[in-house]
């Protein structure tokens, strides 16, 4: 019924994009099934869905990466065929990819004009591109130094370059694929300001995301995708997060973490003045001290790459302590008493690694093998000479049962599970031993909303059983709702600490960009005022 409304409205205004009955299969998998989508001119249209819902496939079809098996693409009221990115660009469609399509060793100017050079001589092309870039920068308020080396720019600025690239090619329809994943809250706000400026000048924006917050904050209309189909078009003003979450998952989802206030007790894990230098002599950790108590969840917030990974490595024994010390369950670990990751485990530490594909599991192994990694030498899994395969399988089956890992098949290759189920398996492996201290890196990265709820519950119940939990996450919402106490890391240092109840995105965001510390803001290098 709603789509009927949209069609009649669209015909009057001739929508920017009108997709009709798009189908696309990869082998037996139907990535898009009879997808219809209408994007009004000069609007911001959100497309939301879980991983694998078919959002990216649909956008790739629109941008000429894939060709649809069947269906029609109408742009500005005209039936168009798009076979390549070149066609898409000519049609006036621009795309800002999740992983930027930039050459790090090129200047901003070179990146912007690549593929759209005015002449075969670079000198000529640069001259005309510079003038045009200047015009676009002023018109849309997108200031970037054209001669800055792109790889040196902060992520937010690189994204600006991507947007400028699209505008330089005359894009009137801009697709943004998960644009906020790598941005600080301040940078997100700046991006939204830019998008609004674009809308005011008649550019139609399509925002692909899995973050409900963003949809509510910026879009005019929103379409939900689930399992390759368009579930529902909605006007953003007339919907809410709960409804959208339910449409995405297909059942009711609890968005807030349901937990009692923490009852912190004795300190179980302590870092004292940890400093870690990398091979180039740069301090990745700079005098980091923190305590995690039994019965509390400590969250570490920060833009990724500010020392969180190194901190987890030291606290789990993967990297040796260089300066300072770690006290784990009363055992002092420092330069003179170096312990490895296995020793740390024996001191009752569990570690769910940030990158499950690199550190958490071997994706080419079966689930049952992944489920004992780190514990493969335990007597319960070993016979006299060979591994006790029956016990290993049994163990995995019971984990899968308890933690709702689907499909429930210990022999299936780890790579064949979805991100959420892989993560559940990793978390199950660590939590099942009830470690006194649990380190969790990015608990829900690449995990669907439904599984997020479950993972959060498991972490909270481990806390309630009187254990200490340290969570590292780049998702602010997650840190704020899951943790009891929050510290913020910036360039290897701890720049702030607060109770989760006192925290809000604004406060944390300022600390994450270190704008609250009074230092000059490094992240804006390369901006011309």
């Amino acid at each position: 019924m709603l789509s009927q409304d949209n069609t009649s409205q669209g015909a009057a205004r001739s929508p920017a994009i009108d997709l009709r009955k798009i189908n696309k299969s990869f082998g037996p998998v139907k990535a898009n099934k009879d997808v219809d989508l209408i994007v009004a001119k000069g609007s911001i249209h959100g497309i939301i869905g879980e991983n694998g819902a078919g959002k990216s496939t649909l956008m790739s079809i629109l941008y000429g990466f894939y060709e649809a098996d069947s269906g029609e693409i109408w742009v500005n009221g005209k039936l168009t065929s798009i076979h390549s990115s070149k066609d898409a660009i000519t049609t006036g469609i621009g795309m800002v990819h999740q992983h930027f399509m930039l050459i790090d060793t090129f200047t901003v100017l070179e990146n912007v004009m690549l593929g759209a050079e005015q002449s075969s001589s670079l000198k000529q092309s640069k001259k005309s591109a510079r003038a045009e870039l200047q015009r676009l920068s002023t018109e849309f308020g997108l200031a970037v130094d054209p001669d800055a080396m792109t790889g040196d720019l902060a992520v937010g600025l690189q994204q600006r370059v991507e947007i400028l690239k699209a505008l330089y090619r005359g894009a009137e329809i801009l697709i943004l694929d998960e644009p906020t994943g790598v941005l600080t809250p301040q940078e997100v706000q700046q991006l939204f300001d830019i998008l609004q400026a674009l809308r005011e000048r008649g550019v139609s924006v399509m925002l692909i995301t899995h973050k409900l917050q963003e949809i509510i904050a910026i879009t005019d209309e929103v379409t939900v995708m689930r399992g390759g189909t368009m579930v529902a078009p909605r006007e953003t003003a007339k919907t809410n997060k709960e409804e959208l979450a339910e449409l995405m998952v297909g059942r009711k989802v609890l968005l807030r973490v349901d937990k009692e206030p923490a009852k912190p007790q004795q300190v179980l894990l302590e870092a004292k003045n940890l400093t870690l230098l990398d091979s180039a002599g740069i301090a990745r950790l700079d005098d980091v001290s923190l305590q995690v108590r039994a019965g509390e969840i400590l969250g570490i917030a920060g833009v990724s790459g500010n020392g969180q990974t190194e901190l987890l490595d030291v606290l789990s024994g993967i990297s040796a302590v260089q300066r300072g010390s770690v006290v784990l369950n009363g055992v002092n670990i420092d330069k003179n008493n170096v312990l490895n990751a296995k020793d740390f485990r024996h001191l009752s530490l569990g570690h769910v690694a940030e990158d499950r594909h690199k550190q958490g599991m071997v994706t080419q192994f079966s689930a049952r093998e992944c489920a004992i990694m780190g514990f493969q030498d335990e007597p319960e899994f070993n016979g006299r000479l060979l591994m006790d395969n029956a016990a290993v399988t049994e163990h995995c089956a019971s984990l899968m049962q308890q933690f709702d890992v689907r499909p429930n098949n210990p022999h299936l290759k780890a790579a064949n599970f979805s991100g959420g189920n892989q993560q559940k398996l990793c978390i199950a492996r660590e939590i099942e031993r009830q470690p006194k201290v649990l380190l969790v890196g990015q608990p829900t990265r690449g995990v669907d909303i439904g599984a997020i709820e479950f993972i959060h519950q498991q972490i909270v119940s481990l806390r309630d059983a009187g254990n200490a939990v340290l969570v590292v996450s780049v998702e602010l919402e997650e840190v704020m709702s899951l943790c009891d106490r929050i510290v913020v890391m910036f360039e290897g240092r701890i720049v702030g600490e607060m109770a989760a109840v006192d925290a809000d995105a604004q406060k944390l965001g300022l600390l994450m960009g270190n704008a609250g510390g009074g230092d000059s803001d490094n992240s804006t290098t390369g901006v011309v005022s």
Partner: protein
Amino acid sequence: MSDFMLIAVSTLDATIRVSTPLILCAMAGLFSERSGIVDIGLEGKMLAGAFAAAAIAAVTGSAWLGLGAAISVSICMALLHGFACITHKGNQVVSGLAINILASGLTVTLGIAWFHQGGQTPLLSGDARFFSIDLPGALAVADIPVLGTIYTQLISGHNALVYIAFMTVPVTWWLVYQTRFGLRLRAVGENPQAVDTAGISVFWLRYRAVICAGLLCGIAGAYLSIAQNASFIREMSAGKGYIALAALIFGKWRPKTALLACLLFGFLEALTVRLEGVPLPLIGEVPAQLMQATPYILTVVLLAGFIGKAIAPKSIGIPYSKER
């Protein structure tokens, strides 16, 4: 003093002659590798080019036709490499090795079948070879000390291909850094997806790069068989393609520094020849084998640590496929 001058000039003169194929191959490799295609097949392309040049020059009596044949054959082999690694996304090192093995076997086999001289081609003379050219005024200034000697002995008196080789360096630099083609070439070696999303064909761009590589390797081959020597001899490339590749890496994939690396390697080889059998002060006579090995040992040592980190084009060796 003038004795030393003469020795120095003749060593440097030899350096230029030895460096010429290295320079051509290094520039060839630069095009290919900057576009993201590993080119270990420089050696094979050069060898095939050398054979084609000598064979055609022997039959037709024209050095220029020989050069044309060398370029055509070398480009064909480059296209074969491209077909395997660009179109079919094969392993670039394996494909390059296959090119080398193919060239090594095929040149000898065809040579025996066509010319019945144990894999060699008939000796060339007259117009079938490139002869040295005296630059204008070379004789007139010959008697001026130092500068005159340098001009007459060192700069003048090489064959056309030597001058072409030295000219390819600024031309390569200009193409790579001053033209639209160069911008895209550098981009595709760093991030082919960015090039694809900018609406440029990654395949066609990379094919053009390997064709450039084929062209230059062909000239290098012709230089070996119909300019520096007077016939094709089996395995006459003798690892020069690999040395050129090392020089390219040593020169960090840049034309000017790669040229310097080629000249350094060429100089070492020229020095080896000069010092053979000559007792050195303090050390005495150095075994010829050790002297011959020096450039290779130096290559390993230099590449292993002395040049700092050589940052390769980011996407080198990775076949590009659209479907992610």
